[in-house]
């Protein structure tokens, strides 16, 4: 029934003609216009100097920054979907993680699922019983990623997801992300690590002064 290169698992979308994510003429005063198409289970990598607009692109797609243009998720225009629902499906994981309770546990709506996934990200399950203050930067980064993954987004917007990690943890994160992408999630990976870009993504773009060009 399914044909072509996208004939793998697409649990939430039966229509293979519609890309998982399509960015059309997305621009703001600071960056763009951006045009991108990602199929389900596809990861693209974006590299470029600090301040070139990589985070801006992710924020605009997540609808955190004001932008003109349109973004489509499985063919449905963002402007027709309430913003909270859009952001749940198009999960932006910022480089700097955010915390709003003192303890770690209340940040997770499904604590059991979070504990279960923690070892795969090289995280000790007892981290959930402590305060956020005692977490290292790398632990915060992985816990924030875990939190986003549990929401089961259809698109992941990853802003240097392994920026503060040691090689072991980095390998764990890449494996977990690879699993989600293989399961049908589309991912835009912003990274400074060219090797990581090569491992994770088939297509590679370079951001330069707010413009995106294929590498």
């Amino acid at each position, binding site marked *: 029934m399914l044909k072509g290169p996208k004939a793998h698992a697409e649990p939430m979308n039966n229509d293979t003609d519609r890309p998982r994510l399509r960015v059309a003429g997305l621009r703001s005063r600071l960056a763009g216009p951006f045009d991108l198409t990602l199929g389900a289970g596809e990861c693209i990598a974006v590299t470029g100097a600090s301040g070139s607009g990589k985070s801006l692109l992710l924020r605009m797609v997540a609808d955190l920054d004001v932008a003109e243009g349109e973004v489509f998720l499985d063919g449905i225009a963002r402007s027709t979907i309430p913003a909270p629902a859009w952001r749940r499906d198009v999960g932006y994981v910022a480089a700097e993680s955010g915390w*709003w309770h003192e303890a770690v546990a209340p940040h997770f709506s499904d604590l059991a699922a979070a504990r279960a996934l923690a070892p795969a990200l090289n995280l000790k399950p007892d981290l959930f019983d402590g305060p956020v203050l005692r977490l290292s930067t790398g632990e915060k980064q992985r816990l924030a990623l875990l939190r986003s993954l549990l929401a089961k987004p259809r698109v992941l917007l990853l802003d240097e997801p392994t920026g503060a990690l040691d090689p072991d943890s980095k390998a764990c994160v890449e494996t977990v992300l690879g699993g989600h992408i293989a399961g049908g999630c589309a991912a835009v990976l912003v990274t400074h690590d060219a090797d990581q870009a090569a491992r994770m993504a088939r297509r590679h773009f370079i951001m330069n002064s707010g413009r995106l060009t294929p590498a």
Partner: protein
Amino acid sequence: MKPTLVLDAPDLAIAALLIVLDGGISLAFGLGLHRQLAVAALRMVVQLLLIGVILTRVFALASPPVTMAVILVMVVVGAREVAVRPEQRLIRFGNYTVGLAAVAFATGVTSILALTTVLRPDPWYEARYAIPLAGIILGNVLNAASLALDALLSSVVREKAAIEAQLCLGATMRQAMAGLLRAAMRRGLLPVINSMSASGIVTLPGIMTGQILTGIDPIEAVKYQILLMFLLSGGAGLSVLVVVALAARHLTDGRQRLRLDRLVAG
């Protein structure tokens, strides 16, 4: 009324020596406050003398439009104070419109309530009652409103990552800001709670002290003070509510984004 002690200019001049003492302290310890102190003291004297003269005239006129105009000027000045205190400013005069709405609403509702149901002078808008009452409520309201506004604006800047992390998990702006809105409202309401708890033990409130000094029976003065405290806490509550609700609206948009681009450092 019992005969009262009358103050003359030489009496005030003796008290003014204390300001000179403060200036000396500032110079001795290098606090760099002596200029500000002198300017503030001078402003205080001129402003109070001026308002004394104006109030005498206005009371004599007994004209509702004039009374209204005086209260309006007070409200606008109060709104400006609310607007300029916070370190962060909402663009397009956001702080001013938020401050004006909060101060005008809270002062208006509380004053009119007190004048028409509790104090009931005849007529209820008589200047001798309306202006001082609005003034004392206004002073308290602007304090509560400016603290709440400052707390909210600085907390959203500080907690940007936390707010946006919640938005990215599918939270609404209301959910993502709930904790900060509560903290800002608490910040605005704490002073009035403190002053209620402390009054009579730690402090003798200024109005009451003034009345007792002019010879009024302490129990009568106390009753007025109790009424005032209730009015002040009501005014503070209303102003904090309006400030937080309006400022939060400025900080977000139809797509529930955190619009920190609408804030500039003041």
